[in-house]
């Protein structure tokens, strides 16, 4: 419940009087405000700055330091105030949380200091309100990154139990971790450079042979170049094999882009070795040499920037695709137009539409080689239109790509925005849980029978002793956890249940119950049947029977002023349709057997009853037999009433 709304709880409870004339059942007793004192101002002295607020304001959140009795530890007897030796600036936000129900994060505040204060005062950061939550999460993430970076820098020492394989992999991925890795890194880089330069220099014309014009260096110094090539390929092969060996998941490694580049870089050499100098395949062999240029892509392992560029292009694929598509459209249109415009002129280079493509592309990209020019007037007109539109068509998608690139570049710097989204989901679910907490808290306490909900009709021979220790402790423990506000709210919900003669259940049980009632015929609703339910089964549910009233009227009044809660722990283990019968019997004014049971139940001590008997059998079993008032044998064939009750009086 929101803080402010808690102030309206008295109103909601007062308005419940509207249900009273309509209700057919007596209402539970309201929880009393035991330490009812007038609302007073309390002084919180935080490092000298005095804050004052009402005590009730702080009581709104009983699971924080200030709202619980934990603050008593900080009470200063002489000055009659609560002294906290903490930061007063941050305390301002914390106190405002109690006042307004919203926790704000001040921007000027350091994130770790703020976190510490929140932790001290027992407030979870997830309740920071939406206006400040983004900022808080961003700052927190930056801080975490900073910490991680620091951690990594200190992570020089090897983790003790790394296998040789893992060490190798780590060396490959993070070259700065060890000297060997660094050496390896530089050596491979050097050889990549050598290999690329070799490929380039191979084709440079390199001096004259007496009978020929210049030949490329590759043909002049064939052995030298072959040796160089062999050396590079050997280094690359060894590197690839080592990476393959060290990779944690070989299959995944083999599928990765970098390894494919590696393979493509060295494969031509081997294919060349294998192939003979056959004429047919030499053409293919030459083509393969082109693939050697892929070695330059190996540099991307050495450069973060290249990797980002590659990633950017990949993610801008849609924009690039759009660019390509629009260009293609324009090219086709203009090529067609130019072809038909130039068809008339003689010696026109525009022999076919595909031939005009070249002209269109060159014109649209404003290259204008001049190898094909239109000669007719119409051709010239359309040619100029073509070049103008080319400028536009190309200029439009480019800014989109550029902005995409800058976005991705910045995004790369905050790579775990995705992680933040997962946290957001977790936060939303936590908030949802706390919001639905009120309803589930009620159901939870119902299930534990802790609706210290005393029906107005009391058991006639209710004893005020507390027999088993266990129950008393549990009782106290559970009292601690439900604040007065909660218990009043639960009382209100309980009154509603009594008014409508239906109970709240949670979704799961509702579906179960729904199925059950759908599948099964209702066990007969005769009064005698209802009396068959085991002692405790009927008894505690019979507490509310109106028939009890005349019997217990006198007793009730005498006991009202020194009530003690009957804590009956209900443990449901499955179906509750038997309870249905008991409820239906509530409206029937019937038998004394109920009262008998109740009397005897006064003596029931804690007993755990688990009855897995199927309901139908026992319901048909003894329709006439009055239930044996047998308090000492709790494991009665409780017909289908899998509601297990532990009554402690």
């Amino acid at each position, binding site marked *: 419940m929101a803080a402010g709304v808690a102030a309206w709880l008295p109103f909601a409870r*007062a308005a419940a009087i*509207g249900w009273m004339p309509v209700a057919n059942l007596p209402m539970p007793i309201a929880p009393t405000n035991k330490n009812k004192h007038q609302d007073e101002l309390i002084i919180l002295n935080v490092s000298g700055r005095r804050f004052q607020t009402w005590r009730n304001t702080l009581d709104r959140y009983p699971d924080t330091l200030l709202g619980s009795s934990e603050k008593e530890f900080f009470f200063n007897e002489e000055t009659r105030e609560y002294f906290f030796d903490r930061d007063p600036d941050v305390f301002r936000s914390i106190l405002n949380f109690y006042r307004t129900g919203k926790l704000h994060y001040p921007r000027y505040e350091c994130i770790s200091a703020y976190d510490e204060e929140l932790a001290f005062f027992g407030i979870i950061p997830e309740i920071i309100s939406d206006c400040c939550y983004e900022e808080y999460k961003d700052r927190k993430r930056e801080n975490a990154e900073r910490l991680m970076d620091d951690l990594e820098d200190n992570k020089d020492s090897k983790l003790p139990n790394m296998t040789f394989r893992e060490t190798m992999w780590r060396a490959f991925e993070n070259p700065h971790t060890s000297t060997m890795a660094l050496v390896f890194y530089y050596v491979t880089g050097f050889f990549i450079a050598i290999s690329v330069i070799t490929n380039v220099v191979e084709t440079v014309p390199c001096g004259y042979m007496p009978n020929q014009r210049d030949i490329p260096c590759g043909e002049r110094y064939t052995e030298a170049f072959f040796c160089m090539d062999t050396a590079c390929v050997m280094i690359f092969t060894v590197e690839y094999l080592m990476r393959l060996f060290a990779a944690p998941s070989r299959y995944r490694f083999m599928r990765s882009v970098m390894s494919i580049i590696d393979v493509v870089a060295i494969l031509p050499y081997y294919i060349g070795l294998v192939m003979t100098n056959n004429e047919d395949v030499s053409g293919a062999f030459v083509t393969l040499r082109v693939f050697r240029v892929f070695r330059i892509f190996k540099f991307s392992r050495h450069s973060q920037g290249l990797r980002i560029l590659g990633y950017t292009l990949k993610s801008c694929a849609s924009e690039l695709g759009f660019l390509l598509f629009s260009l293609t459209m324009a090219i086709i249109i203009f090529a067609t137009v130019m072809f038909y415009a130039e068809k008339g002129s003689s010696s026109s280079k525009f022999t076919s539409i595909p031939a005009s493509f070249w002209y269109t592309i060159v014109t649209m990209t404003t290259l204008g080689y001049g190898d094909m020019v239109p000669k007719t007037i119409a051709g010239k007109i359309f040619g100029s239109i073509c070049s103008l539109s080319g400028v536009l068509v190309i200029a439009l998608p480019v800014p989109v790509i550029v902005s995409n690139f800058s976005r991705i570049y910045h995004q790369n710097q905050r790579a775990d925005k995705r992680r933040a989204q997962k946290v957001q989901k977790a936060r939303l679910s936590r908030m949802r849980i706390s919001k639905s907490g009120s309803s589930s808290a009620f159901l939870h306490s119902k299930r534990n029978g802790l609706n210290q909900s005393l029906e*107005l009709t009391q058991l006639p021979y209710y004893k005020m002793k507390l027999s088993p220790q266990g129950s008393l402790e549990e009782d106290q423990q559970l009292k601690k956890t439900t604040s007065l506000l909660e218990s009043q709210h639960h009382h209100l919900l309980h009154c509603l249940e009594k008014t409508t003669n239906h109970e709240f259940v949670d979704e799961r049980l509702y579906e179960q119950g729904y199925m059950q009632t759908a599948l099964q015929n209702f066990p007969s609703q005769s009064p005698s049947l209802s009396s068959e339910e085991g002692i405790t089964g009927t008894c505690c549910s019979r507490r509310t029977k109106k028939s009890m009233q005349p019997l217990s009227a006198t007793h009730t009044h005498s006991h009202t002023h020194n009530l003690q809660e009957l804590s009956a722990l209900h443990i449901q283990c499955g179906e509750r349709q038997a309870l249905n019968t008991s409820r239906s019997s509530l409206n029937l004014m019937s038998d004394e057997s109920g009262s008998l049971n109740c009397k005897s139940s006064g003596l029931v001590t804690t007993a755990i009853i688990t009855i897995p008997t199927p309901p139908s059998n026992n319901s048909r079993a003894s329709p006439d037999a009055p239930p044996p008032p047998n308090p000492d044998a709790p494991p009665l064939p409780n017909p289908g009433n899998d509601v297990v009750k532990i009554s402690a009086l």
Partner: protein
Amino acid sequence: MPPASMLIILELFCSSCKDSVEDELELSAARHRPEALEQLEAQTRFSRKELQILYRGFKNECPSGVVNEDTFKEIYSQFFPQGDASTYAHFLFDAFDTDHNGSVSFEDFVMGLSILLRGTVQEKLNWAFNLYDINKDGYITKEEMLDIIKSIYDMMGKCTYPTLKEETPRQHVEIFFQKMDKNRDGVVTIDEFIDCCQNDENIMKSMQLFENVI
């Protein structure tokens, strides 16, 4: 002609005046200041301190000083997360809004609470009758009762045990009328209602339930 035109002019003038007056009223309705503490103390049965506490809570939730129906419904729904409390909140709102101006000011609020928490049984029953009598004609008909009871059942929501059936509210209404409608004329008057409630111990007891709420 002249008198007619004068009349027309006068009317226009008055309507514009009324508009401005209404605007003022609206403005003032948007920011309402309650009567003085002493007056409220005299009119209700709350002590000064209690009124202070009530006002602080009220003002916290409604800084403008009045509650309109939507805010009212929202606040009331927060207490019944499983069901739909808006219909019942609507009836409650009508019961609290004694001057029927569409908003509940602090005075209305506190007068209502005074009856509910500090009033005599007679007054409380009167209030309840007023709540049930939707059209405030002095009679509770079966339809009105059905509306009220349906709205109460709505607050329970879907997940109840046993499952709510269609005819449950109707049955409840029947039970109510059997109890209350002595002369079987199909409506319940205020006297029948009060008489019957006073003879019913359960109801009497439950009326005292919320004495110590403030």
